[in-house]
């Protein structure tokens, strides 16, 4: 297996989990209901923990230790999609992102459970059960608020329209797409995207919301190769502030 291809795959998954995990944690203390505060905080804990497990696999492939990788890189060294770095906005945007991203993530881990690369398949088998709770949570709220009041429907619709080009950016193809597919490591972004479109439609069709015409949108690509929005660096500065005071400190 091409190690560079493997690392690229692992980095983008780990960075997505870490950055969205951090964004979710920003809801701690600010959730619209106590239950939602706990939900976003719990999903943050899951996602950051999952990123750590992927960084550990990278560490075994020769990359630095997970803390160094998580806290000492700058924005242009991150491989997350731009979608996860966008600010939380209001609750409607966070909910739409949670739904669109986590649906893709659950499909990705379900696909990776069959990976020929054993460390990834073992971890994916574990994580898909955890992420199932995230999509169940997202689906409940999208279905409820997507059919509730004119205001809730309008807010979700506006967020959905705003989020969609970024959501399509999740599936930015890797330069190693053919290697990953032919080696059986991962079935590829195209296969993932097409299953994702099917699954989000299933939920959106049960609401008053309309899916934007995805074919007419330009996906927000660039994140996978280190091109980010202005929002990522401030997030990293805040996330790593304590660690960078003394990177050698023993916690």
């Amino acid at each position, binding site marked *: 297996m091409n190690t560079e291809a493997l690392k690229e795959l692992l980095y983008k998954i780990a960075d997505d989990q870490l950055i969205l995990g951090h964004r979710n944690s920003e809801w701690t203390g600010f959730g619209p209901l106590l*239950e939602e505060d*706990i*939900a976003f*905080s*719990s*999903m943050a*804990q*899951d*996602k*950051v*923990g*999952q990123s*750590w*497990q992927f960084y550990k696999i990278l560490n075994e492939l020769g990359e630095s230790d997970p803390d160094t990788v998580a806290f000492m890189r700058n924005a242009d060294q991150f491989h997350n999609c731009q979608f996860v770095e966008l600010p939380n906005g209001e609750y409607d945007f966070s909910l739409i992102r949670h739904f669109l991203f986590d649906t893709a993530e659950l499909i990705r881990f379900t696909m990776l459970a069959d990976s020929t690369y054993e*460390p990834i398949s*073992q*971890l994916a*088998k*574990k*994580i898909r*059960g*955890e992420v*199932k*709770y995230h999509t*169940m*949570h997202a689906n*409940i709220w999208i279905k409820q608020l997507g059919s509730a009041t004119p205001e809730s429907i309008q807010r979700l619709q506006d967020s959905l329209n705003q989020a969609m080009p970024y959501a399509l950016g999740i599936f930015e193809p890797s330069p190693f797409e053919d290697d990953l597919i032919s080696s059986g490591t991962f079935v590829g972004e195209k296969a993932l995207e097409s299953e994702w479109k099917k699954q989000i439609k299933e939920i959106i069709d049960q609401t008053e919301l309309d899916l934007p015409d995805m074919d007419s949108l330009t996906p927000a690509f660039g994140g996978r190769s280190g091109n980010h929005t202005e929002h990522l660096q401030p997030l990293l500065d805040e996330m790593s502030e304590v660690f960078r005071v003394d990177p050698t400190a023993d916690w």
Partner: protein
Amino acid sequence: MDEVKDPEIPVLSLNDLGVITGIDIEKSGRVVVNMTPTFAGCPAMDVMKSDVEDVLKKNGIENFFVNLSFETQWNSNMISEQGRAALKKFGLAPPPKHNLIVDIDLIEHAKCPNCDSENTEMKTPFGPALCRSIHYCHDCQQAFEQFKPL
């Protein structure tokens, strides 16, 4: 391993929790304890690992290795009957056994650990720890937590 308890659920031993997936004694005499995390992000795993190391030392075993890996993936069916009884006594509804497909119906219908009623409602799938959800019993009118099926 019966002596080592889950730090967040002190009535549950690691054997009953199902996270000890094997103990090997190698030809060299080294004892290898294989463990698997309940949740990838569970902050208690490191504590459990060091508790296992302490118990091995306390029992005179000096040459050991505690191997934390995902080779066997934990699921909640791996909690023993004794563990389920301990959870219930502790006030946590034990996770329902499942066929590895956890859906909304399965997590919504928890049995109240206080009065055994099934007239309950899930309030949120996320609770005070990654492994717990929050429910409400309409019969005894108490909120309770369930160890999540996974």
